[in-house]
């Protein structure tokens, strides 16, 4: 009977799916790489350096805080890396090198750690980091580099497509294709929608995100701008411009879908996506900032607990109407 003493006892189930939190988070990191490389191609090695600094300082901040609070060091789970990477991807490549450090520090120290670390934060940490940077350094944060192939001799910075439209210079010949592959000014990770979609497909195939939030988010934006064009200039190509510019795809596929800060259910995700889309459009059309994705997601993050409270799955055998 000595042998039997070695048997493990536990409740069922005795087999588990192989997916784990680190696997999910590191896959998100991999899925972001195409966009980072695209950013590097268009904005130069400095872009890569900024992403690197952002990621490393995010991981370092988390480790440091966990050390000080005598908590288990959990930076290996990859969630801090995702936060740092996303933060660096939503800032322009021309910022001073210390800026991503401050952004990452704020993201982890203000938006993640105080709530209890991974799984407990209410707001998307990367977006909080960006919001703080944008409020503190508005000039640096909105001085967008033009992609290298587009730079003229004496102008290396320029407005983003959205800023151009905002200021009424929409007569600039906008090549939607250029927007799509990334040949336009903007933040590091936002520029190439093609690269973002490659990463998004990886996450969709792995089922780490579902279509609900991105489709309802982007769909709502397209719908609202479609209606706007219908009663306005009838320039429907503008819908494509709205979809492929700014941080819409990055936000819709990689930030709004953040598991921790989005609703639990798929129906909740549809509502969340639609809400984000509406707020994005309000900011883009009427707001003072040219880009609204960041604030739209943050505002809907705050509504997530409310959505979860009212959107629940249907109990088996119980009609929803009762």
């Amino acid at each position, binding site marked *: *009977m000595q*042998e*039997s003493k*070695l*048997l*493990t*006892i*536990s*409740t*069922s*189930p*005795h*087999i*588990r*799916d192989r*997916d*784990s*939190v680190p*696997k*999910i988070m590191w896959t998100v990191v991999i899925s972001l790489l195409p966009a980072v490389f695209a950013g590097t191609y268009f904005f130069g090695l400095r872009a890569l350096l900024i992403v690197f600094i952002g990621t490393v300082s995010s991981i370092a901040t988390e480790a440091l805080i966990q050390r000080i609070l005598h908590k288990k060091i*959990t930076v290996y*789970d990859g969630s801090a890396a995702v936060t740092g990477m996303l933060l660096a991807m939503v800032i322009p490549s021309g910022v001073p090198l210390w800026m991503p450090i401050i952004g990452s520090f704020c993201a982890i120290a203000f938006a993640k750690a105080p709530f*209890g*670390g*991974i*799984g*407990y934060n209410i707001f998307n940490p990367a977006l909080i980091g960006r919001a703080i940077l944008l409020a503190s350094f508005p000039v640096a944060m909105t001085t967008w580099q033009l992609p290298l192939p587009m730079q003229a001799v004496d102008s290396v910075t320029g407005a983003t497509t959205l800023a151009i439209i905002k200021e009424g210079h929409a007569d600039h010949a906008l090549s939607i294709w250029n927007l799509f592959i990334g040949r336009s000014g903007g933040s590091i990770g936002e520029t190439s929608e093609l690269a973002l979609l490659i990463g998004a497909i990886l996450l969709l195939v792995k089922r780490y995100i579902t279509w609900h939030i991105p489709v309802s988010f982007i769909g709502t934006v397209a719908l609202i701008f479609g209606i706007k064009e219908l009663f306005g200039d009838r320039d429907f190509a503008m819908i494509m411009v709205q979809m492929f510019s700014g941080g819409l795809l990055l936000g819709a596929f990689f930030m709004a879908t953040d*598991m*921790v*800060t*989005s*609703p*639990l*259910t*798929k129906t909740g995700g549809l509502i969340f996506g639609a809400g984000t889309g509406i707020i994005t459009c309000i900011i883009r059309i009427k707001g003072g900032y040219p880009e609204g994705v960041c604030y739209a997601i943050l505002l809907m993050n705050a509504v997530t607990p409310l959505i979860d409270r009212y959107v*629940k*799955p*249907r*109990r*088996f*055998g*119980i009609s929803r109407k009762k």
Partner: protein
Amino acid sequence: MLIGNRFPSTVQVFFTLMRMNKAINFSSKLIIKRFQGGVYLKDEKASSRKRIEDAELPSKVTIPFHQHIGTPASPIIEVGSQVKKGQKIAEATGFVSANVHSSISGKVTSIGKNLYPALGRASIAAVIESNGKDEWVEGIETHDPDLLTDQQIIEIIMEAGIVGMGGAAFPNHVKLTIPEGKKIETILLNGAECESYVTADHALMLEEPEKIIDGLKLVMRVTKAKNAFIGIEKNKPDAIDILNKAIHSEKNIKVVPLKVKYPQGWENMLIKAILHKEVPPSKLPLDFGIIISNVSTTNAISNAVRLGHPLIERVVSINGSGIVKPKNLRVRIGTLFSELIRQCGGFSGEVGKIIAGGPMMGFSMSDMGVPVTKGTNNVLVLSKDEVKDLQPNACIRCGRCIDACPVGLIPRTIALLAQKGMFKEAESYFPIDCKECGCCAYVCPSKIPLVQLIQFAKTDIITR
């Protein structure tokens, strides 16, 4: 020419419409024939398509008196009694209880508390040592069901101590005694066997389809059911073929191939998949005119009615990475797990877990000295490296447990509240609906012991 040109186009339109109609019908079938939630398990049925072998006659059996749902049977033998194969050794107490019979001939050497392979509790059991003769008790007689009344058939089933053999072990005569005012329309025969590893029902369907159908027809007769469906998962095409052949002359019995998805074999999922009805938590299948029986159970019913054999043996699949030769064995009730493992070539390496039942809902054993009971369909041996010490992380709110839950619960919220001892709040999330199928914990990337925490909440609500 004009007509000649128009004619084919009309035909084409007609056929296109037909095709569309077919496609719509087909897709609506696809939508209906599945239940929400569930998980796709890896097919690990190594012992499938292996013939059923008779296990060696055990030299000693341990037969618990409480192998079923309901009150324990009370012993009618004493230490030192000589018993024969098929002799009743414990009698049902009350209606929801079941008789227990000796599975070998020999001498009762002790009666006392013994480990029991379910619910982690001990049960009073008799230890019987074999005299090697394997003699049947007197009075075993064959019957012609046509000469028996329905009541007599139910009595034979009750006397034979037959319980549900899919795992739940609910006394069968209770199920077949239809309460006043209820009518049974349909019998669902459960051959889904949706847990990975388990192959006992599959093996039985391949080898004894006639007996299974015979038992099913007896069940249909005594319950006056009009029709029956046999639900089998599509990963067992050979069983579907064989049973289809066995029912070719039956008009009111149909084999329904089912999607391979766990927990397809759970009663309510089977009803949903085959009859497109949802049985709410407050109701029983009986309220919908449905009775569900397992293929092993109807096989045992046929044996009891036609041959007069009480339930003293069953097919058990023994498998898992920790075992050398996975097998389907016909085992006497009371045979110890250690004996079965020895007959399957022993352990292939270091052992992690020994599980009575399947990997999703089975019970892990602390000891190999536990006996096979009427409800044991599988013995699973997992090797040491398959059994990891899982460290749960914080919930990252991925929502997978919600998508996987077949009864539409929010497992992570119930678990979170249970962890904090907030049972009152947890109650409003209906943990009582939970059937502990394990889908939520299976998919959880944070490895949170969701089933355990939900059990915790349930226990508090039930005992409050």
